[in-house]
């Protein structure tokens, strides 16, 4: 798949420059957190593979909710749960505790969509999975940030 072009530059606003105003977290900020996550199998980022897109990120700073839809590269992708887990972990580690984070597959884009979504939504399963050192290591590998720009 082709490399994505750099997203348009963020416009600097007067509000951005005012240090005293607490910036609400927006879709772009969430996207910036997840765009560089590595695919577990290919030497490409989730953004480069079109697995994550800014339009599929929904943040409501007032309601403390974040929703991310991700699109597996193929409908039978066996890495779908792992990719979803990496996105979830990245956001759990990066965002303030007040946020409720929902990560699910873009509707219609995976054969086991419901099963994968249910696993990702179950915080007990996620917590137990992350206590498995081998799985945790695989997730951490996906989350290693690269120096390269994308």
């Amino acid at each position, binding site marked *: 798949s082709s490399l994505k072009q750099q997203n348009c530059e963020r416009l600097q606003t007067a509000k951005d420059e005012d240090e005293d105003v607490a910036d609400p977290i927006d879709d772009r900020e969430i996207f910036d957190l997840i765009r560089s996550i590595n695919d577990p199998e290919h030497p490409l980022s989730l953004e480069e593979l079109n697995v994550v897109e800014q339009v599929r990120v929904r943040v409501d700073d007032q309601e403390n909710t974040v929703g991310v839809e991700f699109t597996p590269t193929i409908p039978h992708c066996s890495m779908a749960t792992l990719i979803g887990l990496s996105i979830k972990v990245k956001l759990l580690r990066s965002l303030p*505790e*007040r946020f*409720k984070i929902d990560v699910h597959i873009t509707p219609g884009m995976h054969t086991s969509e419901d099963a994968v979504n*249910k696993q990702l*939504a*179950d*915080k*007990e*399963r996620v*917590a*137990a999975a992350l*206590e498995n050192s081998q799985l945790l290591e695989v997730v951490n590998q996906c989350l290693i940030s690269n120096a390269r720009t994308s």
Partner: protein
Amino acid sequence: MNDTVALLQKFNAHPDSRCWYVAWNPKGTLLASCGGDRAIRIWGREGDSWECKTLLQDGHQRTVRKVAWSPCGNYLASASFDATTCIWKKKNDDFECLTVLEGHENEVKCVAWAPSGNLLATCSRDKSVWIWEVDEENENEYECVSVVNSHTQDVKHVVWHPTQELLASCSYDNNVCVYKEEDDDWECRATLEGHTSTVWGLTFDPSGQRLASCSDDCTVKIWKECQPEGGQEGTDVAWKCVCTLSGFHGRTVYDIAWCPLTGALATACGDDGVRVFKEDETADPDQPAFSLSAHVPKAHTQDVNCIAWHPKEAGLLVSCSDNGEIAVWNYQSGV
């Protein structure tokens, strides 16, 4: 809503980790809590505050998910993601690990003592429910008497009937199962379908005639045992859903507790809220109705995982959260 829930104390119980569960001992003098830090803490009241009396750090290799006091109050069982269940014996302020129950293939999600004190039930992500018998002669000896595989997915919680030897479990498969002993073997006698997502918690009403369940589908369901069609002796028991509480919870309902003293129903929710429901007096016993009596929208700053009524003091309630905190509340009904 004339009724109120007032915060009495709030304290950090499990530093930098989740507090998954909290349980009063039968006398109501102690609180046991457990969490993602793999520890169990025992808390005792000192005037207006709660002090940590005991820290049990080395019992488990992974998260401790639930703890349960024996009916006599002398033993504590802990269920862990490390696939084991530990039985602890209380010796003054200290606890000694008596034995470790092994057998489940992966995370143990719950442990519960039968009111008789002779039986223990555990359940796991391995889809099974295990029933263990305590040896009367030897307190170190626990024998597994039954392994039941009625669920098709992780079993999240098990609870015993208050007076009969009857067990209920709930699961990631969206169902509730009810078990009875038949010829020295435990079997599933009824499967309660109706929830549209994982069922996280269960609680019997004080008489044991009804069961309440709570779910990821954001509802609470009340189930009542009824005569099976045909009414023959020896047929499977039948349970019917007689009430559904929907539209009250914004996210997953993780726990539910029916007060043995007042009959009030409390819930712990993933929207950070604690809610108390009261049964309407005038309703038909086969069609009960519940109203929201009190609601604390931000009981904690994160998900509420557990809620438990004090066994002796009416209105006293404890909750715990993903933020590691325990909160003690006083519920007062205006009417």
